[in-house]
């Protein structure tokens, strides 16, 4: 009984059924599987885009690759300049910038509108090697090292004269050259000229304001201290290694990677997105399984007589079922391929016509790990959905099947 053609016959029959079978049904099935593939991955693509954008913004504007914070029970980093110098000598570090932050109320002198914000001070030259503020100046100029009495303001904080156009509470239309009054937490109030306005497209980032460290020191007498030191390394992926390198050089302050700093609020949002994505994946899989089941079932019912003939002339049931499973796998593989092409086309369209989110423009990214998972799931679901009707019909009595 072992001397037979085995599953090679399944392939033989399947190839001919695909080549000479109903093209419209095949095309429709492939299209449906492709759309299911798109459904399963589209939201993931958007989430990937959001996460990538959020991560880039955290690194480029908020934390660098590694952020150094004051030790436990201390509110500032002492001897900040010395620490910055030490850090600059560590291999793998490409930029270091000390930040000093304080609470401040900024008032637009022109219209009296005010906003309470955290005002941050940095050394503009050091900052250029860590963050990208100097690259997103939309009006005026970036700060220079010796600047006093000058302030850099985010576009959302600057706002518009027409309040209805503001996305966040603003100073009501600040422009370069305008004057703002800054009331520091120590009670000092000083007037500043707006030197530049930047726009990163990140909502939180663009509602901040910056002065130079020398300017802040002249008001707050912060001296050689910093509230945070940002460090940039070679790449985001190397941040954990960089963190341990910094610690190995005897830095006793708290050292955190960008990922450790930023996973709080966005982490919750991503969890919610992921839940929605999983629900969509589940529903899509059900749709796929029902479609494959129906198509295979109709296909098999239409060929019931042929199945009876094949059984009558001595083709084993397993071989016949195998031929249908190969056909289902072929449909599934084509559907997956078309689905991936569609996803890439969507990704291309959305790269050209970018989606605007609160943190900026999203560039959707195909997440190949979840793509791989959806491919495996889709194949399993298709095989099961194809197997059930095939097995059901193949188990019928030969004469019943041959009657059609």
């Amino acid at each position, binding site marked *: 009984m072992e*001397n*037979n053609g085995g599953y090679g016959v399944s392939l033989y029959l399947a190839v*001919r059924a695909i080549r000479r079978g109903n093209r419209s049904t095949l095309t429709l099935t492939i299209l449906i599987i492709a759309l299911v593939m798109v459904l399963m991955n589209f939201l993931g693509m958007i989430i990937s885009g959001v996460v990538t954008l959020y991560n880039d913004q955290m690194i480029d504007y908020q934390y660098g690759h590694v952020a150094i914070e004051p030790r436990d029970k201390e509110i500032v980093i002492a001897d900040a300049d010395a620490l910055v110098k030490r850090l600059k000598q560590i291999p793998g570090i490409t930029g270091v910038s000390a930040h000093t932050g304080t609470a401040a109320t900024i008032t637009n002198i022109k219209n009296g509108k005010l906003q309470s914000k955290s005002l941050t001070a940095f050394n503009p030259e050091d900052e250029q090697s860590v963050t990208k503020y100097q690259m997103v100046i939309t009006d005026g100029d970036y700060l220079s090292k010796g600047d006093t009495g000058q302030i850099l303001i985010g576009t959302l904080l600057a706002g518009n004269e027409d309040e209805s156009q503001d996305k966040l509470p603003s100073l009501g239309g600040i422009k370069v050259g305008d004057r703002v009054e800054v009331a520091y937490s120590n009670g000092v109030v000083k007037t500043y000229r707006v030197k530049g306005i930047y726009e990163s497209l990140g909502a939180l980032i663009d509602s901040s304001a910056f002065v130079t460290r020398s300017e802040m020191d002249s008001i707050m007498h912060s001296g050689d201290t910093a509230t945070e030191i940002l460090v940039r390394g070679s790449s985001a992926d190397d941040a954990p290694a960089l963190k341990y390198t910094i610690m190995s050089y005897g830095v006793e302050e708290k050292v955190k990677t960008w990922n450790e700093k930023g996973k709080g609020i966005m982490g919750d949002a991503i969890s919610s997105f992921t839940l929605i994505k999983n629900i969509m994946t589940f529903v899509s899989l059900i749709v796929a399984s029902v479609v494959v089941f129906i198509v295979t079932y109709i296909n098999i019912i239409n060929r019931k007589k*042929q199945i009876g*003939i094949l059984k*009558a002339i*001595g*083709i084993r049931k397993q071989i016949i079922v195998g031929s249908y499973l190969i056909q289902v796998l072929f449909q599934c593989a084509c559907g997956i391929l078309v689905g991936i092409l569609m996803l890439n086309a969507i990704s291309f369209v959305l790269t050209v016509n970018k989606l605007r989110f609160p943190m900026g423009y999203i560039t959707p990214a195909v997440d190949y790990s979840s793509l791989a998972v959806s491919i495996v799931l889709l194949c399993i679901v298709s095989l099961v959905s194809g197997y059930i009707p095939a097995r059901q019909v193949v188990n019928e009595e030969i004469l019943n099947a041959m009657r059609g």
Partner: protein
Amino acid sequence: MIEVADLKKIYLLGNVEVAALRGVSLSIQKGEFVGIMGPSGSGKSTLLHQLGLLDTPSGGHILIDSTDVSQLDDDARTWFRLMHLGYVFQDYALVSELTVMENVAIPAIMQGKPLAECYAAATRMLEKVGLGKRLDHLVFELSGGEQQRVSIARALVNTPSIVFADEPCANLDTENSRTVLELFRDVNRELKQTIVMVSHEPWHQSYFDRIIFIRDGVMDEERIESEGKPGGPPGNETG
């Protein structure tokens, strides 16, 4: 070659038992061309289906080449059909997605022979039935008579012990019927091929070596045809 003892087949129609075969015993020798005849509903096709392992009898025994095939399980029956039996059906029963040659080759391919060998055997068989020039055609491109000849070629490709033919001429006109019957006769004589064929046409009788008449599920009579020339259809008696 075929030994049948007390063969029974009972169908259930709702709660009613219908006895299609009520204890048929017969034997068929190697190389015989046997006709099974009888009125409509007599059980002749049922008998053929039991002998050809296409159906499972309700009782009795069938021995083919000394194997008690009534004791075989489903897989063993499938294998037995592939290795030892060939079939020709009333409605040709060809696979529409396969070409003429592929239809004939498929039982050989299933036996695990090399593809080239299967195609060569299929080609030889198709040439024998006069379809050597239609190898790459799809079955719907053939006439009914041609399709039935493809079906015969398929039945013969594995040189089976027995070919079962279930009213192979029922859908054919007289000319094509005669072609098919003569083909069977040639194969029977040249290759010593055992053939068991169901028919209800009286003019087919002259092609058979022996006729088993079935009536109401039992053997009615058995008649050995005299060695001689084939007859002809009604209205076409030529000799």
